[in-house]
């Protein structure tokens, strides 16, 4: 059978996970959910076989909008600090769950960058949050989780937002 999965023995196969986050609550919820329900168990049963890569995609600043060099530096510095803060928070969450983690920043369109990172880094599982948008909003605002679930070359786990408290 082409592309058959090798039936392993007693040990689990190593899992390279990519978690896509931004600074939204939904993506941290997705990370938290994945850590608690999927990844922590794997790290308990099989030490060292799961590697979590936390990827944050940032929009590149439009350089042409800022005539003065000083302004460009400040704005991108703020962006860097925000990104670093988000990533370190996510990294701590992984470390608390005893998982090996690393962080990367990708610049550009989230959909493309995430799918490309999956290919380049040999990812086995992509984890994305979902904003829980309805049909219409999804058509207008676009959905990264939708795009990734169709175009990423690996299995995709879409984590739903927690049910809204009424």
């Amino acid at each position, binding site marked *: *059978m*082409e*592309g*058959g*999965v*090798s*039936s*392993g*023995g*007693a*040990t*689990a*196969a190593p*899992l390279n996970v990519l978690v896509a986050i931004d600074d939204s609550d939904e993506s941290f919820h997705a990370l938290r*959910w994945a850590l608690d*329900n*999927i990844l922590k*168990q*794997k790290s*308990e*049963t099989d030490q060292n076989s799961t590697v979590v890569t936390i990827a944050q995609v940032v929009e590149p600043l439009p350089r042409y909008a800022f005539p003065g060099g000083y302004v460009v530096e400040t704005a991108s510095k703020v962006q860097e600090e925000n990104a670093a803060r988000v990533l370190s928070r996510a990294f701590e969450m992984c470390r608390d769950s005893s998982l090996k983690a690393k962080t990367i920043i990708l610049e550009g369109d989230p959909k493309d960058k995430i799918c490309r990172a999956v290919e380049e880094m040999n990812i*086995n*599982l992509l984890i994305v949050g*979902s904003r829980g948008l309805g049909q219409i909003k999804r058509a207008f605002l676009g959905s990264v*989780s*939708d795009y990734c*679930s*169709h175009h*990423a*070359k*690996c*299995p*995709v*786990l*879409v*984590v*739903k937002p927690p049910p809204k408290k009424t």
Partner: protein
Amino acid sequence: MEKPVMVVGLDESEHSFYALEWTFQHFFSPPENSPFKLVIVNAKPSPSSVVGFAGPSAAEVVTYVDRDLKMIAARVLEKAKEICTSKSIKDAICESVDGDPRNVLCDAVDKYHASVLVVGSHGYGAIKRAVLGSVSDYCAHHAHCSVMIVKRPKMKH
């Protein structure tokens, strides 16, 4: 303590069985320590969704189609049970439910209070998906739990 439930949707396609094998490889080996309880759900479509025409001869055709569908469902379940046994998974639930796969899978998630629903994906492009419908798409948006969509990697040319 109850183990969280992982529901795996299964039909007779290779994509589905690949998704099942992938799930076993990453979440159920070693089987004794698996953190999840496995529920395998096969949806048996109703003959009316398969037979496209109405008329006097439709009744006969429906009987044959129904018998065929039952055989396919039974074969899928049997193969699933064999795979579970070969991987030493003893407490898996395998069941076949009548109805449209989209609803059957989402209902199974509610019935078993699943944490994760795993579905395979045919990897249809946008047009095929619009015309044929996509179970994985529907479930990703409507299931009341997180959804894992497992695709077979495409062969490099």
